């Protein structure tokens, strides 16, 4: 996809691959494997820039096919560079940051009022939490005791124009969410077993509080020349970098 596309948010997708893999494999419930099933759990990709990783998961689920993947960014493609809710499997239209989380808060409140056991996961970027509505939503979620809501922060340490340290210091994201009344944990966002355990442990806490999982990740994870190199926030692969990236991921020359 990142080879087919003209310019793509490739590193933003690579930092959340393991998070999505664990969520889809072990936590998200889709009755009948239907992405539109009533009563499904919701995965709200608030950082729409990571959508390529979600397309890969949707292909694994059988919701989209190779043809659509190969047609990424071609004229008439439904799979856009940012999440579009009109594709079954994508719950929100995101890319303008700080939107999806609030919609997730509304879904969580709706599930509570409807007395369902649905779980709502909202995946946000660390750059994204610069946005004010994230903190409006955090206050609201804690006030309404939305303990069916988990915000997952992809803390890869970078945003579009630089490191979070350079742009707007975030300090401890975990303690920020704790001070807003969340039950929070920090985990290695590339260790699938640790992610799985942390999600399980957060849900197992007997509390009315919403949950926050801070995932320490590496932007561009898996491809050495992309890791910690913010040029790959929004860059396409050419023939050479595609070959090198593929070899780094598959281990084949």
């Amino acid at each position: 996809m990142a080879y087919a596309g003209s310019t793509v948010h490739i590193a933003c997708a690579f930092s959340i691959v393991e998070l999505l893999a664990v969520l889809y494999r072990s936590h998200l419930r889709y009755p009948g494997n239907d992405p539109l099933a009533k009563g499904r759990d919701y995965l709200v990709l608030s950082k729409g820039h990571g959508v390529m990783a979600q397309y890969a998961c949707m292909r694994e689920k059988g919701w989209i096919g190779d043809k659509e993947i190969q047609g990424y960014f071609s004229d008439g493609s439904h799979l856009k560079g940012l999440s579009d809710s009109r594709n079954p499997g994508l719950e929100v239209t995101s890319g303008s940051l700080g939107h999806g989380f609030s919609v997730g808060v509304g879904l969580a409140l709706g599930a509570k009022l409807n007395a369902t056991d649905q779980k709502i996961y909202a995946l946000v970027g660390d750059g994204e939490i610069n946005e004010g509505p994230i903190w409006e939503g955090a206050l609201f979620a804690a006030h309404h005791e939305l303990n069916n809501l988990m915000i997952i922060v992809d803390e890869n340490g970078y945003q579009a124009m630089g490191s979070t340290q350079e742009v707007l210091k975030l300090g401890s994201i975990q303690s920020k969410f704790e001070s807003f009344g969340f039950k929070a944990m920090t985990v290695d966002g590339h260790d699938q077993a640790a992610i799985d355990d942390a999600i399980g442990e957060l849900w197992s806490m007997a509390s009315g509080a919403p949950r926050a999982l801070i995932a320490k990740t590496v932007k561009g994870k898996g491809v050495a020349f992309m890791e910690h190199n913010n040029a790959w926030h929004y860059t396409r692969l050419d023939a050479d970098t595609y070959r090198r990236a593929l070899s780094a991921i598959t281990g084949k020359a």
Partner: protein
Amino acid sequence: MRARLSATLVSIARADPKVLLLTGDHGYALFDEFRRECPAQYINAGVAEQNMVGVAAGLARSGFRPFVYGLSAFIPVRVLEQIKIDVAHDNLPVILLGDGAGFVYSYLGTSHQSTEDIACARVVPNLSVYSPADRFEAAACMQMAFESKTPVYLRIGKSDRGDVHEAVPQEKVGRLLPARTGTCAEIVFIATGALVRTAIDIAARSYPDAAVWSAPFIKPIDGEQVISICRPHRVVVVLEEHSVFGGLGSVVAEITSESSPVKVLRVGVRDRFSQCCGSYEYLLREHGLDAAAIEQRVRAYLSAN
């Protein structure tokens, strides 16, 4: 008008437990009855309008029917992007109630005055824009917005200028409503919101044979009807407590210019912020929107055209 809005909302909410009212810490007395009658359906989302609209979108996705209330300067203008992306993009049935539109907050200044809202809202796909003139139109707009099951921005302006109809109009969405009948071929008035009353007063005083039409629906609007209202007249005067850019005057000019050109005088706020504060009537005078100033403009326009 406000009592009627409140009563209509209460009756809609009592009939459907999926109705929720979200407010951005505004509403004071307007929602006393709602809170008494439907306490479980009332959510004060705090001074956090952006989150409130996103939450409403999530609730609509979960099968609820949210009404989102705020001052018109904030709902829809401050949260236009949330309305566009989170609500309108997927045609979710969220009703946005924007109160105090125009110069209602005449003493408070620019932050609370709202003369850009129609222009902002009407360019968002899927989003309808309603603008009632009296309690009867308000009740009809509220009911029709709910029944449409689509995103609607309902603009609530100055609400104590008296009735322009005698009963709740039985018409379809998009129709303009006669507020005063007349046969004058020289001039016809089309107005929305609080200025419908002004148009009626001006016509009664100076153009006794002129008709006045109220436009409670800015979008969608029945284009054929607009043309049939305008065509027989030499001059059409459109009045609104809103910018002359992008409001009802623009709507009428856009529609008529394509297939039935006619002289349209757009009376509204002429691309300026209020300079001073004072009573509502004072603010109208400052902007040249009091009946005397409008009459003078109309007379000058008629003699020049």
